[in-house]
């Protein structure tokens, strides 16, 4: 007698295409209209389709007076600087949290978490005068410093997890074979951190890439990054095609970096919280 396969114990079974379609609709739903809007010119309500497709939105967004190219350059520059600093800080702090006995460890963890929990602008407003007095306001350096704590908090969180997966005994073994502390780190642990470092740097970059309010308050409108340009265009211009075009430019790095790093991303990475905020 051939037995029938028992029913699944819980719930219904969605098929593969349905699942992918639903997830795709959810994620792409609001983003696809952006892509449509960016190529429209005259699209009067209540027409379902625009009266004319055109590249005028792109022309305005990319044109010399929009300043998008400069904003992208500024954003990338700040992002790379923040990513570099935060990754170094996070790698060191993550190692300490994962490998070392620390006095007052819980307090340290709490302090490192404050940038995640406290809304950043509560800080930015207070910090503005400090930056002004230090001559750092309205400067790229000031914006990098202002964005650094939040980015460093996330890289520390992430790297302490990565370090916990590396066996400290390997470095000890290296030391017995004559390697100094730095060589032991560079030649033994560093190769094993590689994937984590890439993800940490990527997250830090994205934290910086998304930041609006810190940049606005500390940069004083002088340092114009992509989010500042996007907000100004969206709120002030009424030019929906140009707004959509800038938004599309701004969304490319996050999507691209996440897609590239998808294999490195562990499902429950706490550091995911930081991205896009």
């Amino acid at each position: 007698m051939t037995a029938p396969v028992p029913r699944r114990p819980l719930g219904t079974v969605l098929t593969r295409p349905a699942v992918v379609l639903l997830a795709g609709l959810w994620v792409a739903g609001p983003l696809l209209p952006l892509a449509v809007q960016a190529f429209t010119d005259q699209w009067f309500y209540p027409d379902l389709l625009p009266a004319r497709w055109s590249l005028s939105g792109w022309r305005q967004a990319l044109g010399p007076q929009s300043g998008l190219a400069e904003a992208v350059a500024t954003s990338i520059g700040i992002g790379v600087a923040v990513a570099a600093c935060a990754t170094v800080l996070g790698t060191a702090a993550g190692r300490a949290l994962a490998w070392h006995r620390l006095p007052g460890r819980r307090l340290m963890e709490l302090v490192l978490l404050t940038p995640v929990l406290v809304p950043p602008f509560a800080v930015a407003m207070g910090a503005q005068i400090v930056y002004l007095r230090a001559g750092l306001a309205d400067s790229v350096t000031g914006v990098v410093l202002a964005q650094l704590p939040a980015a460093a908090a996330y890289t520390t969180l992430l790297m302490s997890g990565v370090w916990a997966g590396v066996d400290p005994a390997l470095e000890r073994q290296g030391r017995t074979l004559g390697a100094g502390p730095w060589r032991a780190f560079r030649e033994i642990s560093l190769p094993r951190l590689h994937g984590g470092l890439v993800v940490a740097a990527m997250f830090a970059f994205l934290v910086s890439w998304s930041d609006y309010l810190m940049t606005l308050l500390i940069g004083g409108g002088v340092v114009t990054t992509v989010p500042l340009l996007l907000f100004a265009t969206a709120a002030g211009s009424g030019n929906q095609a140009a707004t959509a075009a800038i938004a599309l430019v701004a969304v490319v790095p996050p999507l691209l970096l996440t897609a590239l790093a998808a294999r490195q991303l562990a499902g429950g990475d706490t550091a995911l919280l930081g991205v896009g905020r």
Partner: protein
Amino acid sequence: MTSGVSIETLDHTYPGATAPTLRQVTLDVPAGTRTAVLGPSGSGKSTLLSIVAGLTAPTGGDVRLAGRSVLRLPPHRRDLGVVFQRPLLFPHLTVAENIAFGMRMRGTDRVVVRHRVAELLDAVALPGFTDRRSTELSGGQQQRVALARALAARPAVLLLDEPFSALDPQLRGDMRTLLTDLHRREGTTTLFVTHDRDEATDVADHVAVLVDGDLAQHAPPAQLFRRPASLAVARFLGGAANAIAGTAHPGRFDCALGSLRLDTPHRGPGLLLVRPRAIVVADQDGPNVVPATVTAVTDRGTHLDVQAASADVILHLTTGPATPLRPGDEVSLWLPPTQLSVVGR
């Protein structure tokens, strides 16, 4: 009410696998008895248990509880208790709530539940642990709670999947005693999966040996050792140190050692099996006594491991330290007929 388990010509192959996990396994566990499924890792014994529990679907065959096919029933309607290798106590519940879980799911009266929980806590020697959390218990204590939890709702069948293998040896012995005591009290039909032959023979009244997905033998423990059904069974039970090729006839076995007397249902070409401990150094001639020359002796302290050559056959035997043998000694070895068994080649 406890009930019997009948497993009938069960087949199972994992999707994508070339070799089946289980092949035509038929096993009958009468109500109130205990059967251990014994096998090396990868023999398919955990899959067998998982199929009975309803957690894995077989590719063929049937499972009957109390004579009724349960293959179409999901696990929660099979009236079982299962204990896995890890205790898997619900971390959000106290010890008492864990034990009460099955009864609560069945809507048992609260007073009855409280009474039964107290009774079982006593039975597993954890009185006063009612309000403890599972994280506060040791591994052995957790597994005892898991055992009580599985039995609490008086299931028809108790399934145990290597329940003690994560515990240290001392504790394992205690748990075997506890399980035997619990069975005496509760009388639940028990199917017990293990890779440890001492555990199997200690806990169960019948042992089913599973080798590579085939049920090789199902018999009471003593018979398993005395009359292994195949070379594979004998190997797994550690009784294949001496395997001598020959031909079985009614009442005798002809081989290089001569014609040996024994009682075997086997006919034709086969392997004679005799355990090293069963071979006796004799001081006179007679039936089943063969001359041999000692070739190697290893002193193990409590006994000697001896190798002796007889007509090109190397025999392995153990002797007490009072029989000081040395390489080169000529000896007579008695192979007691009741200790000899024959399996197919």
